Every structure is written in structure tokens, then in C-alpha cells.
């Protein structure tokens, strides 16, 4: 049965007992710890417990016309703890970055039940080491994220998405290069090919956010490049829900088209601006990793009994 602690003390006890017994801890359900601890609109910061879902947080922030501009699909189920553990991101990554760029304070329960904090609730802070970074994408392997403080962004006055269908990869590549060379500053810069796509299988998507004037000016420029058809970002959720195995492949952005060629027709969604491809079919391409000796030392130091999950 998945443990579901209802208090910090209970979570601490769960971990310290497991550490003492050297017993592995599986998934922990943190959805009972789901409060918005503080949202200070005038500071553009918010502190939340890890069990709150991304969608619930956005709803709360939206009341003050603010948001955490991180948009992985499935925000109705995905908790903030999971967003941090998996470094989850979505289509707006090109313009806004990832949760790494917004996390300014983190509280974590370590394997032995100790609670530690790093950072704080101010937007600029270099006191002490930036421990929080270790937990972003750490898959819960060094500790359990308990509470997070984010800097926020105002909701833009306007946000619009446009797309263009391309019947060949060469045309898509040309269009992507034209966008890169233009004065456009899109927030979304994607290329996708879904299993359901018709005869023009590749789609380039741009998204713009900002003042009405900024967005309108950009829509005009995008139109000149051939990106005219208004659209939504539903393709992201459709792809993730389609059940095709999703592998992540990160390449130099200029090598995106070459990488897509190697996918051999498999469906994919790519952050074209970032060079990140999520694809079905067989895994392609090598993966970059950090030096393994440091990885091992870090895991051994923070979780000596190896009771928490291992990094995959």
C-alpha cells in the first residue's frame, strides 16, 4: 500500500524508520500535503506544499493574474513535487525555461528524516550552496520534496498560438531556420508529427505572449513566414496520452532535423527551439550524463542506506 502521510512529522517518521531498518521506500503519496502556504502577489512569489497539483496552484495564482510559467501536460494530476522530481516541462519552455528557473526555495526531508531548507523566499539569494538544484530532476533519490517557493510571472495580457503544416522535413527545417533568423521572440517554438496527422505530417507551432501590441506584431511577422493558422497546444496532451512510448532525446538545436530523420517516421513532439525531442518507436541517440563517480558519491552521502529510489 502506498503510504500517505498527513503531516510532516509523519513523513519524517516514515523515512527515519525506513532508514533505521534499511528498508526501501517506494512511492509516497503526498497529496494530503497540498496547501498554498503563502502567495504574496506584490512580491510575485508563492510557497506551496509538494502535494498540490500544478493545476490547483495555477488556479490559485490566477486569481491575482499571476502564474508559474511551467506547463508540462497533465497538470490536473501532476503534483509540484513530481514536477520538481522529474524536471517536467512543456511547450512554453522555449520562452520561459523550466521549474529550475523559478524555484527559489526548497524544503526537503532527507532519507534519515531530517528536514533541510535551501534558498528562501526572496527572488535573489546566494547565501549558502544552491542545494535545491540537486533535487530538480533528482527523481526523489536524494530526499523527499516537502515545500517549494517559486518566483512567478504576471499572466500575459495576450497569448496566441499559430501553426503551419509542412509536407516535408526540408520545408519544416527551412521554416524553423527562418524563425530563428527573424526578430520573433516566441514563447513556444515546437515541431511535431502525431500518429493522427494527415498527408502533411509535420507541424511547426509558435506561441507568443505579452502585451496585445507585441503579440499582434509578432502574429503579423509569423504570418509573413507562413505561420498563419491559429491553433492550441492540445497536441502535447494528445501525444502524451496516445500511449506511444515517449523517449527524450536532446540535441543541439541546429541538428534537430537530422535527428528527426533518424526517428524513421515515429511520432514525436519536439521543442524545436531547445532541441529536445519526445518520440515514440525505438530509443535513438546517445544520452549525456554527468561523471558517474560524483553521482555515486552524492547518492551515498545523502542516502547511505539506499532506501530512496535510484536515479534511472
Amino acid at each position, binding site marked *: 500500500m502506498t503510504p500517505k502521510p498527513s503531516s510532516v512529522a509523519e513523513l519524517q517518521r516514515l523515512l527515519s524508520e525506513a532508514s533505521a531498518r534499511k528498508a526501501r521506500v517506494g512511492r509516497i503519496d503526498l497529496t494530503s500535503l497540498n496547501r498554498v502556504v503563502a502567495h*504574496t*502577489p*506584490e*512580491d*510575485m512569489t508563492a510557497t506551496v506544499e509538494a502535494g498540490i497539483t500544478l493545476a490547483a496552484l495555477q488556479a490559485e495564482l490566477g486569481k491575482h493574474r499571476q502564474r508559474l510559467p511551467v506547463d508540462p501536460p497533465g497538470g490536473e494530476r501532476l503534483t509540484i513535487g513530481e514536477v520538481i522530481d522529474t524536471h517536467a516541462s512543456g511547450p512554453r519552455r522555449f520562452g520561459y525555461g523550466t521549474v*529550475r*528557473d523559478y524555484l527559489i526555495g526548497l524544503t526537503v526531508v*532527507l532519507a534519515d528524516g531530517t*528536514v*533541510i*531548507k*535551501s534558498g*528562501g*523566499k*526572496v*527572488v*535573489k*539569494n*546566494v*547565501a*549558502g*550552496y*544552491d*542545494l535545491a*538544484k*540537486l533535487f*530538480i*530532476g*533528482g527523481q526523489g533519490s*536524494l530526499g523527499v520534496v516537502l515545500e517549494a517557493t517559486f518566483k512567478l510571472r*504576471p*499572466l500575459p495580457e495576450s497569448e496566441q498560438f499559430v501553426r503551419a503544416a509542412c509536407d516535408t522535413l526540408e520545408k519544416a527545417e527551412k521554416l524553423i531556420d527562418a524563425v530563428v533568423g527573424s*526578430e520573433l*521572440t516566441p514563447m513556444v517554438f515546437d515541431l511535431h508529427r502525431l500518429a493522427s496527422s494527415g498527408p502533411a505530417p509535420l507541424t511547426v507551432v509558435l506561441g507568443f505572449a505579452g*502585451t*496585445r*501590441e*507585441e503579440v499582434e*506584431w*509578432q502574429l503579423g511577422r509569423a504570418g509573413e513566414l507562413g505561420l498563419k493558422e491559429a491553433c492550441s497546444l492540445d497536441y502535447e496532451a494528445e501525444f502524451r496520452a496516445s500511449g506511444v512510448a515517449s523517449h*527524450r*532525446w*536532446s*540535441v*543541439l*538545436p*541546429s541538428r534537430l532535423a537530422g535527428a528527426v530523420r533518424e526517428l524513421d517516421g515515429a511520432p514525436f513532439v519536439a521543442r524545436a527551439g531547445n*532541441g*529536445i525531442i519526445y518520440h515514440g518507436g525505438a530509443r535513438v541517440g546517445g*544520452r*549525456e*550524463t*554527468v*561523471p558517474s563517480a*560524483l*553521482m555515486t*558519491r*552524492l547518492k551515498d*552521502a*545523502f542516502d547511505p542506506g539506499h532506501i530512496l529510489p535510484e536515479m534511472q
Partner: protein
Amino acid sequence: MQIDRPVTISSQMVDALCAIVGREGVIYGEEELLVYECDAYTIEKQLPNVVVLPRTTEEVAAVVKLCAEHQLPIIPRGAGTSLSGTVLAVTGGVMIALTRMNRILEIDYRNRRALVEAGCVNAWVTNAVKSRGLLFAPDPSSQGACTIGGNVATNSGGPHTLKYGVTTNHVLGFEMVLPDGEIIWLGTRPDGGEEVDGYDLRGAVIGSEGMFGVVTRVLVRLIRAPQMYKTLLGVFESVDDASCTVSDIIAAGMVPGAMEMMDQLITQAIEAAYHFGFPLDAGAVLIVELDGLAAGLERQAERVIEICKQNRAREVRVAKTEQERMDLWKCRKRAFGAIGRLSPNFLTQDGVVPRSKLPEMMRFIRACSERHGLRIPNVFHAGDGNIHPLVLYDERDPDQVRRALAAGHDILSKCVELGGSVTGEHGIGVEKIDFMEKQFSKDDLDAMRTLRRIFDPENRCNPHKMFPGSKRCADFAPRKQIAA
């Protein structure tokens, strides 16, 4: 383990270092070493035993390995513009200055990346790419001198962090030499994708104040330069009015590139030094810089002017030309330099408070100034809540030195009390060690020590920084210290 006695170095060791980097790359005469006795935090000073100036990563690695074999402290150093004693050789030791490794190695315009050596000066990067409409976002006031390696060590900010973030948001990866001499690469590689599997060790090293190893090459992210800037100068009767303006601009849903405030004392000093035309009787001036696409910027500027007026601004000036804008920023970035006209010495603080607490913090600083009988001008990153009170004193008067330190202490304690931080961009170094226990619990600090041991099990890299219990210069060589 921590080296806690004064280091001595044999002439054979000096010869061995000369064999690695050449005789002209080794400094060991006391006269020449004086340059390296402190950074811009001048209250504590200590000479390293020797300074080496390597030209390649391999030379750095060989020096570091030699030091490891002889159990010698190593102290990485960039341009020495840090403000917290971060590069102080507390016990002496071998200082590794990266200033000769200062080249821009590659610029990849298509992928918006540049690979530079750690000693490359911050401003050189933007200067090299601006003709192609790109820039490197972190822009500390010392950007004409400070190095990219130093930016990595302190996770440097600058006025434009409000919109663009700090160094950690703009460094993709780097090469570093671990304290045992091993050369590793962390984060994104120059020809690789931005996602890297495994722990974000790159992120953990950025801001570690040179305590994890010696960064030798850095891959930085370049961003598109704004199509247009709109730079406004609001003149206010009081710091309170200017602070409220900052909050109101944020509340209106705008994110300016920068919002910088200067109080009356600093404005007067700047005016005397640079003759910009600042009013001498205004309580505060606020620089608000909007940037981005030209479309819509005019309407945002009008909104900012309106908000300034609502907060009783006496006038709002708009920079009409790029030259006017550059002049304004020159005044702001050289503000510390203008202080020489007011006082022989100053102590800069670098506290942060939540933006909404700025008015309260400013009132506290005024009271603090009166209590300690010292003038404290203010120039700061208002949009981030990052204050830089400059406590003026004369180091020839021991009582003034004591009062300056006490005033600084009071101000930083107040920042912590208001839910802020004792440092927004300058780092802990030796200066703020005593505050670590105020801001963090013992468990927090233990976790940080654990992280340090992953990289430097012998605590030999830039020792006696950051953590309570570290030795101070006074423990070794009182002759190098002023009475404090």
C-alpha cells in the same frame, strides 16, 4: 579535515610550480603578492604564499595535482572584484589566478552559445556578439573587469536580473578541475543538447564560491538583445514614494528589465563625480528600464509614468537617445566609484528583502545610520529587493571601523528578520560567515558540508569560507589587518 595553520611553501615547491606554468607565470615576491592580498572587501587581508597564472586547463590540473600531493590549500581567483572576501587566502596557500585564460573560444550564433575561458571578462562576451543582436544577460556592475569564472563562483546578478535571471540561468555547462586534479565537464557540452541526465551538478557548483574546484571553461547561453529599450528616470521626494512605485509597477503586471533606486546621498555623490544632471534635492531617483519588442513598449512606458505620478513623482525623464541611456547606466554602475568623494572607506552590504518590505527596510537603515553616527547612502536593485547600503567610515579611526561593522551587522540581521537573505549576489565569503547560522539551521549547514565533501573531501579548495567555525585572518597574521 581542514588546514588550520599558516601554510609554508618550500623553494622546491616554487620551482615545481615554475616547471608547470613557466617562471613568468609564478608570483612569490611579497611586493608583487600584495595585489592578491584581498578582493574588494578590504577589511581583512592576507597574502597567499604564491600565485600561479596558468594558460591552459592542463596547466591548472597539473598545479592542482601538485597541491593535492603536498596537501596545500588552493584558492581559485578571477579578477578579484568580489565583495565578501571570497578569494582571500585565509591560511595562505597557492592562489590560481585565471586571468591569462581569458579567450573567447567559440561563438555559435545559430544555437546562441559561446564557449569561453574562465578568465574571460564578462563584458567581452556581449561586446563580441552584439553586432549579431545577441547578449550575455548577467551584467554585474563590475562587468568591465569581472570574469565569467568569477560569475560562476558567485552566481552573479546585476541590474537586469529582474527580468532575465542570474548566472545560473545563463550558464549551460563548464569544464572544471576537481581538487584532486581530475578534469571533468558538468552540464551541457558545447556540441550537445541542453538536457543532461543525472543530477544537476552544474547547478550545485554555480554559486559555490570556488570551494568545489577550479572552473576553467564555460559554455554560456546568449539571448536575443531587445529590439528596443525605454529607460525612464523618476525623481521622487522620498525613498518611500519610489519604493511604492516599484511595488505598483509589479502589481500592474509589468516586468521591466531593471528597476534601480538611488537615494539622495548617492545621487549627490554621482552628480559631483559624473555631472549627469541629477537633481540634488530629491529624496530618491528610480531608473525603470522597459525592454523588448518595440510594439507596445510606448504604452507600457506611459503606464509607468502614470504610476510614478500617482506616487507623487516630481518629474519623470525619458532617455531620448541611446547615448542618454548609456550615460544613465554608466552613472548607476559607477556609483560605488563616486563614493570616494564622500568617504575614504566604505563597507557595502548586499542584503535582500521581499520587495514589499523595501520601505520598512529603508526606514530601518536611516535609523541605523543615526544610531551609529555614520552616513549610509543607498543604491540598489529595487525590483529584486536587493539592497546595497554603503556604510561610510574612515579606516584610520578604529571606533569608526567598529561602528561600521556594527551597522552592517544590524542591517543584515534585519534582512533575515524580514524573511530575506544576507546576500543577493556578493556571496558569503569570509565577511558573512557569522550570519549563516542566523539564516540556516545546523541541519541545513550539515547538508551543505556534505555536498562540499563530494567535491572536496579534504576541504582544501578555498578553505575557511562560508561555514561557521572557519578561521579568520586575524588568527594567523594580525600584522596584515587593520584594527577591527
